[in-house]
Protein backbone atom coordinates (compact mmCIF):
# COMPACT_ATOMS: atom_id res chain seq x y z
CA UNK A 1 0.00 0.00 0.00
CA UNK A 2 1.31 3.46 -0.95
CA UNK A 3 1.11 5.87 2.00
CA UNK A 4 -0.15 9.43 1.53
CA UNK A 5 2.29 12.25 2.14
CA UNK A 6 2.19 13.69 5.71
CA UNK A 7 1.16 17.04 4.30
CA UNK A 8 -1.86 15.54 2.51
CA UNK A 9 -2.79 13.59 5.65
CA UNK A 10 -2.60 16.75 7.73
CA UNK A 11 -4.77 18.72 5.30
CA UNK A 12 -7.32 15.94 5.14
CA UNK A 13 -7.41 15.88 8.93
CA UNK A 14 -7.96 19.65 9.12
CA UNK A 15 -10.75 19.37 6.53
CA UNK A 16 -12.30 16.49 8.47
CA UNK A 17 -12.27 18.38 11.78
CA UNK A 18 -13.75 21.51 10.17
CA UNK A 19 -16.50 19.45 8.56
CA UNK A 20 -17.32 17.57 11.75
CA UNK A 21 -17.55 20.86 13.67
CA UNK A 22 -19.83 22.30 10.97
CA UNK A 23 -22.01 19.20 10.82
CA UNK A 24 -22.43 19.05 14.61
CA UNK A 25 -23.37 22.74 14.67
CA UNK A 26 -25.83 22.17 11.81
CA UNK A 27 -27.44 19.24 13.66
CA UNK A 28 -27.93 21.44 16.75
CA UNK A 29 -29.49 24.29 14.79
CA UNK A 30 -31.90 21.99 12.94
CA UNK A 31 -33.89 21.37 16.12
CA UNK A 32 -34.05 24.99 17.20
CA UNK A 33 -36.37 27.27 15.25
CA UNK A 34 -35.28 30.82 15.94
CA UNK A 35 -33.50 33.61 14.07
CA UNK A 36 -30.37 32.94 16.13
CA UNK A 37 -30.28 29.31 14.98
CA UNK A 38 -30.45 30.53 11.38
CA UNK A 39 -27.50 32.86 12.02
CA UNK A 40 -25.56 30.01 13.67
CA UNK A 41 -26.33 27.76 10.73
CA UNK A 42 -25.44 30.25 8.02
CA UNK A 43 -22.57 32.00 9.78
CA UNK A 44 -21.17 29.14 11.84
CA UNK A 45 -21.98 25.73 10.37
CA UNK A 46 -22.02 26.98 6.79
CA UNK A 47 -18.66 28.74 7.11
CA UNK A 48 -16.99 25.76 8.80
CA UNK A 49 -18.29 23.34 6.19
CA UNK A 50 -17.35 25.52 3.22
CA UNK A 51 -13.86 25.95 4.73
CA UNK A 52 -13.61 22.19 5.25
CA UNK A 53 -14.57 21.51 1.64
CA UNK A 54 -12.09 24.12 0.38
CA UNK A 55 -9.27 22.62 2.50
CA UNK A 56 -10.17 19.16 1.14
CA UNK A 57 -10.13 20.42 -2.46
CA UNK A 58 -6.78 22.17 -1.90
CA UNK A 59 -5.42 18.96 -0.36
CA UNK A 60 -6.33 16.77 -3.31
CA UNK A 61 -5.34 19.40 -5.88
CA UNK A 62 -1.91 19.79 -4.30
CA UNK A 63 -1.34 16.04 -3.85
Amino acid sequence: MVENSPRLQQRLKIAAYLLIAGLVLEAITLYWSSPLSFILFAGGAGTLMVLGIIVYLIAIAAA
Partner: protein
Amino acid sequence: MVNHAVTILVVLSIILIGLLILRPSLTAVTGGKILAFIALFILPICALALGSAVHLQHATSTNFCLSCHPMEAYGKSLRIDDPSYIPASHFQNNRIPRGEACYTCHTTYAMFGGLKAKLGGLRHVYIYYFGTVPAKLALYEPYNNRECLHCHAGMRVFEESSPHKEMMGQLGSNEMSCLTCHNKTHDVQNADKLKFWKGP
Protein backbone atom coordinates in the same frame (compact mmCIF):
# COMPACT_ATOMS: atom_id res chain seq x y z
CA MET B 1 -39.60 14.42 8.79
CA VAL B 2 -37.15 16.44 6.66
CA ASN B 3 -35.32 17.33 9.88
CA HIS B 4 -34.79 13.63 10.61
CA ALA B 5 -33.60 12.95 7.06
CA VAL B 6 -31.02 15.74 7.32
CA THR B 7 -29.99 14.50 10.78
CA ILE B 8 -29.41 11.00 9.40
CA LEU B 9 -27.33 12.48 6.60
CA VAL B 10 -25.32 14.56 9.09
CA VAL B 11 -24.73 11.54 11.38
CA LEU B 12 -23.70 9.38 8.41
CA SER B 13 -21.26 12.08 7.27
CA ILE B 14 -19.79 12.38 10.77
CA ILE B 15 -19.31 8.58 11.00
CA LEU B 16 -17.56 8.42 7.64
CA ILE B 17 -15.39 11.45 8.38
CA GLY B 18 -14.57 9.97 11.81
CA LEU B 19 -13.51 6.76 10.09
CA LEU B 20 -11.15 8.74 7.86
CA ILE B 21 -9.66 10.50 10.89
CA LEU B 22 -9.12 7.19 12.73
CA ARG B 23 -7.82 5.35 9.66
CA PRO B 24 -6.03 7.94 7.48
CA SER B 25 -4.26 5.17 5.58
CA LEU B 26 -7.61 4.33 3.96
CA THR B 27 -7.16 7.25 1.58
CA ALA B 28 -4.05 5.69 0.07
CA VAL B 29 -6.12 3.22 -1.98
CA THR B 30 -8.65 4.01 -4.71
CA GLY B 31 -11.66 2.87 -2.68
CA GLY B 32 -10.56 5.05 0.22
CA LYS B 33 -10.09 8.02 -2.07
CA ILE B 34 -13.67 7.59 -3.32
CA LEU B 35 -14.87 7.27 0.28
CA ALA B 36 -13.00 10.47 1.21
CA PHE B 37 -14.53 12.28 -1.78
CA ILE B 38 -18.02 11.19 -0.70
CA ALA B 39 -17.46 11.94 3.01
CA LEU B 40 -15.54 15.20 2.66
CA PHE B 41 -17.23 16.66 -0.41
CA ILE B 42 -20.50 15.10 -1.59
CA LEU B 43 -22.21 14.47 1.76
CA PRO B 44 -21.32 17.86 3.33
CA ILE B 45 -22.66 19.67 0.25
CA CYS B 46 -25.90 17.66 0.47
CA ALA B 47 -26.12 18.33 4.23
CA LEU B 48 -25.57 22.03 3.65
CA ALA B 49 -28.17 22.24 0.87
CA LEU B 50 -30.80 20.27 2.78
CA GLY B 51 -30.01 22.17 6.00
CA SER B 52 -30.55 25.45 4.16
CA ALA B 53 -33.92 24.19 2.88
CA VAL B 54 -34.96 23.20 6.42
CA HIS B 55 -33.91 26.56 7.83
CA LEU B 56 -35.71 28.49 5.08
CA GLN B 57 -38.82 26.43 5.86
CA HIS B 58 -38.43 27.18 9.60
CA ALA B 59 -38.17 30.87 8.74
CA THR B 60 -41.71 30.86 7.35
CA SER B 61 -43.25 29.70 10.63
CA THR B 62 -45.28 31.98 12.87
CA ASN B 63 -43.27 30.85 15.91
CA PHE B 64 -40.06 31.87 14.16
CA CYS B 65 -41.32 35.45 13.64
CA LEU B 66 -42.79 35.68 17.12
CA SER B 67 -39.59 34.46 18.77
CA CYS B 68 -38.28 38.03 18.52
CA HIS B 69 -39.53 40.19 21.37
CA PRO B 70 -40.74 43.16 19.20
CA MET B 71 -43.09 40.79 17.36
CA GLU B 72 -44.85 39.49 20.49
CA ALA B 73 -47.52 42.18 20.42
CA TYR B 74 -48.20 41.45 16.74
CA GLY B 75 -48.58 37.77 17.55
CA LYS B 76 -50.99 38.65 20.35
CA SER B 77 -53.00 40.79 17.94
CA LEU B 78 -53.79 37.65 15.93
CA ARG B 79 -55.99 36.62 18.85
CA ILE B 80 -58.07 39.80 19.14
CA ASP B 81 -61.63 38.62 19.70
CA ASP B 82 -63.24 40.84 17.08
CA PRO B 83 -63.90 39.70 13.49
CA SER B 84 -63.47 43.22 12.12
CA TYR B 85 -59.71 42.94 12.76
CA ILE B 86 -58.39 41.54 9.48
CA PRO B 87 -55.27 39.65 10.63
CA ALA B 88 -57.11 38.22 13.66
CA SER B 89 -60.12 37.04 11.68
CA HIS B 90 -57.88 35.45 9.03
CA PHE B 91 -55.81 33.69 11.68
CA GLN B 92 -58.69 32.50 13.85
CA ASN B 93 -60.81 31.24 10.95
CA ASN B 94 -58.00 29.39 9.18
CA ARG B 95 -58.18 31.66 6.14
CA ILE B 96 -54.40 31.55 6.30
CA PRO B 97 -52.29 28.67 7.65
CA ARG B 98 -51.86 29.45 11.36
CA GLY B 99 -48.37 27.99 11.34
CA GLU B 100 -47.29 30.45 8.63
CA ALA B 101 -49.51 33.40 9.41
CA CYS B 102 -46.92 36.20 9.19
CA TYR B 103 -45.25 34.85 6.08
CA THR B 104 -48.55 34.34 4.22
CA CYS B 105 -49.55 38.01 4.34
CA HIS B 106 -46.14 39.69 4.55
CA THR B 107 -44.43 38.10 1.59
CA THR B 108 -44.60 39.96 -1.67
CA TYR B 109 -46.27 37.73 -4.23
CA ALA B 110 -44.03 38.87 -7.04
CA MET B 111 -40.93 37.52 -8.71
CA PHE B 112 -38.21 37.22 -6.03
CA GLY B 113 -40.82 38.03 -3.34
CA GLY B 114 -39.65 35.13 -1.20
CA LEU B 115 -36.01 36.20 -1.59
CA LYS B 116 -36.92 39.79 -0.72
CA ALA B 117 -38.72 38.57 2.40
CA LYS B 118 -35.68 36.52 3.43
CA LEU B 119 -33.31 39.45 2.92
CA GLY B 120 -35.67 41.67 4.91
CA GLY B 121 -35.71 39.00 7.62
CA LEU B 122 -31.90 38.93 7.76
CA ARG B 123 -31.91 42.70 8.14
CA HIS B 124 -34.40 42.39 11.00
CA VAL B 125 -32.22 39.77 12.72
CA TYR B 126 -29.22 42.08 12.39
CA ILE B 127 -31.14 45.02 13.87
CA TYR B 128 -32.57 42.83 16.65
CA TYR B 129 -29.20 41.53 17.82
CA PHE B 130 -26.80 44.33 16.89
CA GLY B 131 -28.87 47.47 16.31
CA THR B 132 -31.74 49.38 17.89
CA VAL B 133 -35.28 48.26 17.23
CA PRO B 134 -37.46 51.34 16.47
CA ALA B 135 -40.14 52.06 19.05
CA LYS B 136 -42.83 52.00 16.37
CA LEU B 137 -42.55 49.36 13.68
CA ALA B 138 -43.71 50.12 10.17
CA LEU B 139 -43.73 48.40 6.80
CA TYR B 140 -40.96 49.36 4.36
CA GLU B 141 -43.59 50.29 1.76
CA PRO B 142 -47.38 50.67 1.76
CA TYR B 143 -49.19 47.32 1.93
CA ASN B 144 -49.77 46.18 -1.64
CA ASN B 145 -53.25 44.90 -2.62
CA ARG B 146 -51.46 42.16 -4.55
CA GLU B 147 -50.85 40.36 -1.24
CA CYS B 148 -54.63 40.27 -0.55
CA LEU B 149 -55.58 39.51 -4.14
CA HIS B 150 -53.15 36.59 -4.21
CA CYS B 151 -55.94 34.68 -2.41
CA HIS B 152 -59.04 36.81 -2.89
CA ALA B 153 -58.84 37.33 -6.65
CA GLY B 154 -61.01 34.75 -8.35
CA MET B 155 -63.16 34.17 -5.25
CA ARG B 156 -66.79 34.46 -6.30
CA VAL B 157 -67.93 35.77 -2.92
CA PHE B 158 -65.32 38.52 -3.17
CA GLU B 159 -65.57 39.48 -6.83
CA GLU B 160 -69.37 39.46 -7.08
CA SER B 161 -70.02 41.37 -3.87
CA SER B 162 -70.47 45.09 -3.64
CA PRO B 163 -68.39 47.27 -3.45
CA HIS B 164 -65.55 44.96 -4.62
CA LYS B 165 -67.32 44.32 -7.93
CA GLU B 166 -67.43 48.03 -8.80
CA MET B 167 -63.82 48.74 -7.88
CA MET B 168 -61.95 45.67 -9.07
CA GLY B 169 -59.89 47.79 -11.49
CA GLN B 170 -58.87 50.23 -8.76
CA LEU B 171 -58.02 47.41 -6.38
CA GLY B 172 -55.97 45.62 -9.00
CA SER B 173 -53.95 48.74 -9.79
CA ASN B 174 -53.52 49.74 -6.12
CA GLU B 175 -55.33 52.99 -6.85
CA MET B 176 -57.56 52.09 -3.92
CA SER B 177 -55.99 50.20 -1.02
CA CYS B 178 -57.86 47.30 0.55
CA LEU B 179 -56.85 48.86 3.88
CA THR B 180 -58.88 51.99 3.12
CA CYS B 181 -62.00 50.10 4.19
CA HIS B 182 -60.49 47.14 6.02
CA ASN B 183 -58.42 49.39 8.23
CA LYS B 184 -58.44 47.38 11.43
CA THR B 185 -55.19 45.48 11.34
CA HIS B 186 -52.79 44.61 14.15
CA ASP B 187 -53.56 47.66 16.34
CA VAL B 188 -50.87 46.83 18.89
CA GLN B 189 -51.17 50.26 20.52
CA ASN B 190 -54.70 49.53 21.75
CA ALA B 191 -54.20 45.84 22.46
CA ASP B 192 -54.62 46.33 26.22
CA LYS B 193 -58.21 47.51 25.77
CA LEU B 194 -59.30 44.53 23.66
CA LYS B 195 -60.60 41.06 24.40
CA PHE B 196 -58.61 38.06 23.21
CA TRP B 197 -59.62 34.68 21.85
CA LYS B 198 -58.30 31.77 23.90
CA GLY B 199 -58.56 29.18 21.14
CA PRO B 200 -55.76 26.93 19.86
